[in-house]
């Protein structure tokens, strides 16, 4: 049986879809059969980020409503034969997701894949709660910024209350993925530090993804970050995060501090 991972955050625009695509690709690069499921019904974007927007025929809602069989809706990645995408519907709304339908689809995917990555929509409503419902592991994507941290705290509360595992009294693995981190700004005291966010949210750290042009570049190209340039700093961060997710013990590295020459010379830092 595969493991179900929900990539969630509460707040929008923090990098859920980028992270779901990058982690999914990173796990698939390890030769583990992976499917990434878009739960953002009505506002799908995972297909675009993964470069499969022109290959969508059937979607999650079609499968739930019985208009298509699950294998018909799955899109195999052109670059990695272990990576699949199950797109969301763009034309219907989230009311078309039923709890029972989602349970059946996730159950079937778990039997056929090593990893089922659920890309949650923003918010705390139906789409988000259904995306996290069957998760074994939650990846909470957070920016080092007050509104994102607050929303992550709220989402962590929901994970502990509304997932099947939580309702059974089992504990659910929750991990923090800190994205858009800028070590220079944190060092100057203008951005929450990794330790600050960890102390406030008190869940273990899965990885630190630095703010980088490579992320926008990868989405422009429709390529998961880890496939676009596996040597780039964000790709390395996601590849390491995927190894930790798979149970490997990889030490966390804060992405390289690149202080300007001037900064180094004058020891420019916050008072």
């Amino acid at each position, binding site marked *: 049986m595969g493991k179900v991972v929900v990539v969630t955050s509460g707040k929008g625009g923090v990098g859920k879809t980028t992270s779901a695509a990058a982690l999914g690709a990173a796990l698939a690069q390890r030769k583990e059969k992976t499917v990434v499921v878009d739960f953002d019904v009505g506002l799908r974007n995972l297909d675009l980020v993964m470069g499969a927007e022109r290959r969508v025929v059937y979607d999650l809602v079609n499968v739930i409503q019985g208009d298509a069989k699950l294998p018909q809706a799955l899109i195999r990645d052109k670059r990695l034969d272990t990576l699949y995408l199950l797109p969301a519907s763009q034309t219907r709304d989230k009311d078309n997701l039923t709890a029972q339908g989602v349970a059946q689809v996730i159950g079937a995917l778990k039997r056929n894949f090593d990893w089922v990555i659920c890309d949650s929509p923003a918010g705390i409503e139906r789409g988000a709660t259904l995306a996290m419902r069957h998760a074994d592991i939650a990846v909470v994507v957070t920016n080092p*910024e*007050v509104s994102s*941290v*607050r929303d992550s*705290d*709220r989402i962590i*509360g929901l994970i502990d209350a509304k997932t099947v595992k939580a309702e059974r009294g089992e504990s659910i693995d929750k991990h923090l993925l800190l994205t858009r981190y800028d070590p220079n700004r*944190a060092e*100057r*005291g*203008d*951005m*929450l*530090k990794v330790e*600050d966010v960890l*102390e*406030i949210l008190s869940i273990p750290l899965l990885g630190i993804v630095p703010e980088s042009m490579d992320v926008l570049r990868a989405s422009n190209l429709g390529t998961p970050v880890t496939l676009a340039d596996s040597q780039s700093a964000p790709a390395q961060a996601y590849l390491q995060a995927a190894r930790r997710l798979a149970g490997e013990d990889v030490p966390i590295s804060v992405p390289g501090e690149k202080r300007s020459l001037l900064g180094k010379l*004058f*020891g*420019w*830092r*916050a*008072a």
Partner: protein
Amino acid sequence: MSFFGLFRKQASAPTARDRLQVLLAHERASVGESDLVARLREEILAVIAKHVKVDGEKVKVKMDRGDQVSTLEIDVEIPLKARVGAT
């Protein structure tokens, strides 16, 4: 502090951290609160019902959360001659 530090704006991240810590302590408590009040109400009702006959609707439990202390207000309406097993 370096010479250039004198001209820098004061660091804002510690303020962000402190504000979040205060806010989240408050929010975490209030999310659990509605649940807590419901449980308290049920248990208080059960204890009272052992001794006097009360109408479940006539028991009111209210929680007010302040900065330093919170107050729990319990309002029970007991009708005359309501003692259970009274002779």
